[in-house]
C-alpha cells in the first residue's frame, strides 16, 4: 500500500481532523513492517511533529504491506521519518504497567496470557511474561515488586488500579477476586478506585456486594460489538447480550459505581451500531473505550468490517461518535487507551493531559 504524508494531510482536510491524529490513526490501523522477532510491540514514541508529547502504543509489527516501517529507532512513512522510538518491547502479557505519569496501575492479576478466544484480541499472539497468581499473598508480593521497581514506600498515591485480567467466566469468582485485590491493595496503602474490565458482572447482587466491599469501583463492560458476537468473541463474552448492556451499566450507576464499556471500531459497520450506542450513552459515567481494530495478520483481517482496512473508515467513525457524545460532556482520556480514535483533539476541542 502506498500512503504518504500528503495523503494523510488530505484526509485530515477532508474530515477536518488535525493531521497528527490522522497519522496516529493510520499507524494503529495499518501497523508497520519491521525486522522484529515478535508480531507486536509495546512502544514509547514521539512524533517528529509533536516532540514534546510522548505516546504509548501497541503496534502490529509484521504487516508486510504497511506503508509504515520500523527501522532502528525510527518509524518511517515512505522516505519520511514520522516518529522516534524511545522504547520498544515485545508486547507480552505482563504483571502490570503504569499510566497517567505513574498514577494509574493496570494490573494483570489473573493470568491474562491464559485468556484466549476473541478474534480481535492480540493476547494469544503475545508471549506470556505474567506470573500465575492465585492467592492474596502472591498479589501482595507483586505489589511489593512494583513498589521496589518504582522506589515507592507504598501505593497510597495511586489514583486508580485497573484490572485487565483473564476471564473469570462467572460472577462469583470475579467478585471474590476483586475483594482479594482490594484487601491486598489496602495493605499497601491504596484507597483509590479499582477498575475492572469484564463481561461477567451483571446482577443487582453483584453490584451491591461490590459497592459494599470493593468500591470505589469502575465497571468497564467488555462489550466489543453488537453483531456476529458468537463468531468473533469467546463464548463467555458472547453470552453477554447487547440488550443487557444498558441495564447493567445503569445498575452499576445506581449503586454509585462508575460505569462504561469497550467497543472495537472496525468489527462491524458503525451505522448498524449507532442506535445501540446512543442507547448506552446515558448509562455511562466515563467516556467509552473505543478501540481501533488492529488486524495483525491475514486471518484477523477476515473478521474486519467492509472498508475497515482503510484509514478513512476510522476517521468517519470518529466523526460519527463525536456527534453522538459531544453533548454528554464526557471526553476520552489522553492516557488510558493504546489504540484510540482521538489523540490531540475531540470535535473542535483540544485534548490535553497526561499522555503516558
Amino acid at each position, binding site marked *: 500500500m502506498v500512503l504518504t504524508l500528503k495523503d494523510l494531510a488530505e484526509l485530515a482536510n477532508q474530515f477536518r481532523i488535525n493531521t497528527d491524529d490522522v497519522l496516529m490513526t493510520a499507524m494503529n490501523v495499518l501497523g508497520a513492517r519491521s525486522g522484529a522477532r515478535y508480531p507486536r510491540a509495546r512502544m514509547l514514541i514521539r512524533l517528529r511533529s509533536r516532540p514534546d508529547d510522548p505516546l504509548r502504543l501497541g503496534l502490529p509489527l509484521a504487516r508486510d504491506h504497511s506503508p509504515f516501517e520500523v527501522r532502528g529507532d525510527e518509524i518511517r512513512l515512505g522516505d519520511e521519518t514520522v516518529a522516534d522510538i524511545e522504547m520498544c*518491547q515485545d508486547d507480552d502479557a505482563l504483571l502490570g504497567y503504569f499510566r497517567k505519569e505513574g498514577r494509574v496501575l493496570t494490573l494483570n492479576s489473573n493470568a491474562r496470557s491464559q485468556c484466549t478466544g476473541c478474534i480481535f484480541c492480540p493476547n494469544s499472539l503475545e508471549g506470556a511474561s505474567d*506470573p500465575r497468581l492465585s492467592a492474596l499473598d502472591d498479589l501482595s508480593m507483586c505489589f511489593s515488586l512494583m513498589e521496589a521497581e518504582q522506589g515507592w514506600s507504598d501505593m497510597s498515591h495511586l489514583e486508580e488500579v485497573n484490572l485487565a485480567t483473564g476471564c473469570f467466566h462467572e460472577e462469583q469468582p470475579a467478585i471474590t477476586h476483586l475483594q482479594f485485590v482490594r484487601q491486598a491493595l489496602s495493605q499497601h496503602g491504596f484507597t483509590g478506585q479499582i477498575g475492572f474490565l469484564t463481561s461477567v458482572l451483571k446482577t443487582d447482587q453483584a453490584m451491591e456486594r461490590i459497592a459494599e466491599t470493593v468500591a470505589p469501583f469502575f465497571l468497564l463492560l467488555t462489550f466489543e460489538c453488537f453483531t456476529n458476537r458468537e463468531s468473533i468473541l469467546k463464548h463467555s463474552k458472547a453470552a453477554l447480550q447487547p440488550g443487557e448492556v444498558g441495564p447493567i451499566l445503569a445498575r452499576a450507576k445506581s449503586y454509585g459505581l462508575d460505569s462504561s464499556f469497550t467497543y472495537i471500531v472496525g468489527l462491524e459497520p458503525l451505522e448498524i451500531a449507532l442506535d445501540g450506542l446512543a442507547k448506552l450513552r446515558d448509562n455511562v459515567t466515563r467516556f467509552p473505550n473505543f478501540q481501533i481494530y488492529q488486524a495483525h*495478520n491475514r486471518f484477523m483481517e477476515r473478521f474486519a468490517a467492509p472498508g475497515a482496512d482503510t484509514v478513512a473508515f476510522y476517521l468517519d467513525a470518529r466523526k460519527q461518535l463525536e456527534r453522538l457524545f459531544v453533548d454528554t460532556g464526557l471526553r476520552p482520556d489522553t492516557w488510558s487507551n493504546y489504540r484510540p480514535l482521538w489523540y490531540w483533539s475531540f470535535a473542535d476541542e483540544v485534548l490535553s493531559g497526561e499522555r503516558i
Partner: protein
Amino acid sequence: MSASERTRGDSLVQGRLRRVGNLPAVAAPTGILADRGAARLRARIGAVKFRAYVYRLPDMAVVVVPLEVCAAAGVRTGDPVSLWIEAERPDHPMAVPADVSDSLTSARADITTLTTRERRQSLWLIREAASPAIRASRIEALTAAYAAETAEADRQDQSS
C-alpha cells in the same frame, strides 16, 4: 541433586539473597531479560525446584525467590545463593487438526510459513470455537486468508 550439578539448558546465577521491597530476591544480569520487562523462569536452588519470576528494576534484574522456597532450601536474607535458572520452554507449535488440514490442502493454503505465535493464535481460535458452525466459519476464514497469500506468493514467483 547438589547445587553444583548442572542440567542441560541451565545457567548459574550466584549472589546473596537480598530484600527487594519485602521480597527475597537474587540479582541477575539484565541480559537474561533481553527486550522484555519481565519473564518466567524455571529455577532451582540445590534440589528445590520452583517457577520463578524475573523482573527488571531500574538498575538490574532480580529473580524473586518465594518465601516457601527460601524455607525449603534453608536460605535467609544475606546468605550466598547459587541459583540455576532455565528459560521457560518455548511455545509448542500446535498440531493442525484434520479438518483444518483438509481445508487448507483443498485450497492450497499454506500456514507453514507463519510464526509459531501466529499459527498458535489461529489454531487456538479454531479450537475454542463454541459450536461446530463457528469452528467451520473460522476454518473457512483461515483457509481463505492463506489461500490468498499463497496465490499472491505464486504470482510474485512467476513474475520474478
